């Protein structure tokens, strides 16, 4: 183990703040734009993803504001535009497309994953640093093309680009879809990089079953990224060709089959939701074990359930098309397979609960988000079982029930997991501690706002409110008003989170190497990590063995004390030291 010696602590001042770290290693804009350091690339991803999240969030607020009154609060039939609701269609499309392709997919793997994956693994970098940078610029190019598409005529097809409307639409569908193609490439290259890194760059002692569960999750994600994303690539190209050349593959006017598009689209886009949720589940495993001061329960089950989700995730895409002209036999098979995804997902949730059981739970901000995740993901997952049931889905298909389910999983799951991970690794990334009160407050606000927004949508949906409508029957108004109020609360919550994090950058206390008492490798190097991650090759132990981590007042963080290692078994929680921070 990399033992924190008093020398090292003294060298960096009272805390183990490393003055020579990856942030100070070199200076200037060029040193960032041309960097090959996975940590800096991760930071650049983080900035880009958060910016995209801000824009996508604004579109969401516009959509919710429009739905305050039944005839529409912003874009009404009274407006001069010939097609008054087109703008509304553009708003929800942009919200969806930006959130999916620019935020949720790259969010955890490319931003947080890039930063912590090699360090957690004990490697100096990802396997292909240049490819990593290239992937980031592909991401930027894809985002730029998406912005161009907004300028040329924002897409109004919904993020699913269903044919034939996406062929007929006069908006810049081809551009947006080309942006998706480029973003897909970025995602593929990141996934490839991670797979090779995990296979080939593990230091001695880092066996597969000693890897932190976050890495298992990223690995499973990367497999989906590599195997599913090319299909959205070719689908995007085909859609462009359909618009430009009328090749007659998706366009019924030319003998094409619009349902074939749906198959192609969901063959990627269903696995893609596992690209989004799996890394968040990985974050959960880290955070919950750390803040329960207890070894993760059922390590192998969690690890393999990630792989199981990745594999089964490929076989369920048909559940998006139950009422769209599938054979009953096919629909039945897809329904069954959809149900089976519940098994590995539930394995994870139960294992997290079992980890917390009799743990010494510290309600730090990341843990608050983790608890919110479990609650919201459980609701999102269980309503998914409703939707996977053939007969029920016929009733609920394309209603707000689907919208609510999707947001519970993708927002309540992925995004909350992302925030949890961001708050968890923030001290490692920036070397600064944030204000816990603000952090917790943001979590509470987002949690309350989230449920206020989306719980009523389950009710609305089951009563028949269709998704994507710009206006609605007056009896749905109370639900819509509640939903919109919730959206505003969330906005405040995110603002508080932003304040907490930005404040820490300027006024935050410097962070020790290990502020939380985690046992994974990234906490054994300084905060922020040095340019090379590890001056000496780290020794790999059990990533969830907290037994020899003790609070040290001098460094205001946790340090390793190997003498303690044998005094506790890994089955019980390690008593938390009195908190000084």
């Amino acid at each position, binding site marked *: 183990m990399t033992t924190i010696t008093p020398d090292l602590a003294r060298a960096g001042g009272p805390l183990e703040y490393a*003055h020579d770290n990856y942030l100070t290693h070199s200076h200037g804009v060029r040193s960032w734009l041309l960097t090959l350091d996975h940590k800096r690339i991760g930071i650049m991803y983080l900035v880009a993803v958060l910016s995209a999240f801000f824009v996508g969030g604004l579109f969401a607020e516009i959509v919710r504001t429009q739905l305050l009154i039944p005839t529409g609060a912003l874009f009404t039939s009274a407006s001069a535009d010939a097609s008054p609701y087109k703008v509304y269609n553009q708003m929800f499309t942009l919200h969806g497309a930006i959130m999916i392709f620019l935020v949720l997919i790259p969010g955890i793997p490319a931003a947080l994953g890039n930063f912590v994956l090699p360090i957690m693994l004990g490697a100096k970098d990802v396997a292909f640093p240049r490819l990593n940078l290239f992937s980031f610029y592909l991401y930027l190019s894809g985002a730029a093309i998406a912005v161009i598409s907004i300028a040329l005529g924002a897409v109004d097809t919904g993020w699913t680009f269903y044919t034939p409307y996406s062929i007929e639409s006069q908006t810049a569908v081809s551009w947006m879809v080309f942006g998706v193609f480029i973003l897909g490439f970025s995602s593929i290259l990141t996934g*490839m990089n991670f797979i*090779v890194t995990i296979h080939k760059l593990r230091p001695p002692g880092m066996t597969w079953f000693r890897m932190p569960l976050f890495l298992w999750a990223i690995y499973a994600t990367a497999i989906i990224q590599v195997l599913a994303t*090319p299909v959205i690539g070719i689908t995007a190209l*085909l859609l462009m060709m359909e618009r430009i050349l009328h*090749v*007659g593959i998706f366009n019924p006017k030319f*003998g094409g089959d619009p349902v074939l598009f749906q198959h192609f689209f969901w063959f990627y886009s269903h696995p893609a939701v596992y690209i989004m949720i799996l890394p968040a589940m990985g974050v959960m495993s880290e955070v919950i074990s750390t803040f329960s001061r207890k070894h993760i329960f059922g390590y192998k089950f969690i690890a393999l359930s990630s792989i199981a989700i990745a594999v089964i995730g490929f076989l369920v895409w048909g559940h998006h098309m139950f009422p769209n002209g599938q054979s009953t036999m096919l629909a039945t098979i897809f329904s069954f397979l959809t149900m089976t995804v519940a098994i590995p997902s539930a394995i994870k949730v139960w294992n997290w609960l079992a980890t917390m059981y009799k743990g010494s739970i510290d309600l730090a901000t990341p843990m608050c988000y983790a608890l919110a995740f479990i609650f919201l993901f459980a609701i999102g997952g269980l309503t998914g079982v409703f939707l996977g049931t053939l007969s029920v889905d016929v009733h609920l298909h394309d209603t707000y029930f689907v919208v609510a389910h999707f947001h519970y999983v993708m927002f309540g799951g992925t995004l909350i997991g992302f925030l949890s991970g961001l708050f968890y690794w923030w001290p490692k990334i920036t070397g600064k501690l944030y204000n816990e009160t603000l952090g917790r407050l943001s979590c509470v606000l987002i949690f309350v706002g989230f449920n206020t927004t989306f719980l009523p949508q389950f009710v609305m949906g089951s009563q028949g409110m269709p998704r994507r409508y710009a206006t609605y029957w007056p009896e749905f108004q109370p639900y819509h008003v509640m939903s919109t109020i919730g959206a505003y609360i969330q906005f405040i919550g995110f603002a508080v989170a932003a304040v907490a994090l930005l404040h820490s950058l300027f006024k935050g206390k410097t962070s020790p190497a290990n502020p939380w008492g985690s046992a994974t490798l990234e906490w054994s190097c300084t905060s922020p990590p040095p340019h090379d991650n*590890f*001056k000496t090759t780290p020794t790999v132990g059990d990533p969830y063995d907290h037994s020899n981590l003790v609070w040290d007042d001098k460094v205001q963080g946790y340090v390793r004390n190997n003498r303690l290692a044998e005094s506790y078994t890994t089955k019980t929680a390690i008593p938390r030291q009195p908190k000084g921070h």
Partner: protein
Amino acid sequence: MTTTAHSAPSHPPEGDGHGHPVPATDHADAHGHEHPKFLAHHFDTPQQQFDSGKLGVWLFLTTEILLFSGLFCAYAVYRARHPEVFSFAHHYLNKWLGALNTIVLIFSSFTMAWAVRASQLGEKPFLIALPKGKGQYQQLFRCSHRQLCMFLLSITIVCGGVFMCVKYLEYKNKWQENLLPGELFRPTELPGETARPRDEAKPLAKEGAPPEGLTAGVAATRAASQPAAAATPVALAPEASIPAVGPATRQAPEGFLVEQSQIPRAAIGPAGVSSDWEKAHASRFEEQSVVVTKEQVGPEPYNTHIFFGIYFLMTGLHGIHVLAGMALIGWVLVRTRRGDFGPDYFSPVDFVGLYWHIVDLVWIFLFPLLYLIGNSG
């Protein structure tokens, strides 16, 4: 991970943490131990680097296959649904040119594979010698394997170029004949005539069977599946009664789909060709071995343009990959010339070779699927 070597300070002293501008070349830092020039700093051994690269390339090739698989899937769906379209339309493709391209690409795969081997042998000599008997040899040619590698890579690029030229000729032909996807699909020629140069077609107009009549006849057959009275002259005797000829319009009713079993097969030629015209030009069908005789071509089914949509998408995407492959081979050629490769380090040649083989492999599937479709569909 190298344990001991890294204990040496890897950077200039910068303990004060500010004021020391460190060169921005992030990863060019010296680690104080002997890393070969080609070994990136985050790898411990050349073997690790090579293995990583190889795994990465194979993953990349997987994504390439999946990219093409979307098109193969579309092909399978439409061929299963509309076999008559494929059976009819493939006659427009020149299978001899396709075969030529197949041979060219397979040969280029051979030169590529040999180039990888030559690259591994580096400066070792390459000899061609004749046995003179009694264990004696007469040396005919001698160069280094690096030079041989450059030669082989050049040949591979040339093969790629030949492939693209042939592809260009085929595309040009399709373009001239309006054998294009979607609305652009407006062929004025009969299948079997695709090899005929444009200017030769003109004199026909002066003869008895003008292109107008021909066009009308072809158009009539396009709607062949609509049972209707014969509106235009129908082909020869026994088949004249086939209810294959409908109104001379391409537009079928909305939502009208043709199942295979409904397609009446005209045993002799596309209906609507006047017998005079056929007699006058019968020799044309016999002369050209490339072309199919009319007997093999039924009436043009509805939505034939889908075949050309798929044809252009598949061969187009493949062509882009060939061009990318040629560029990559050019890159390793330059590096080979510079002497970058040898027994210790030849990964780029190896990986580009793998890529080139996958591009060939895709073509090996494309050729039979597009060019060699039987008449039964």
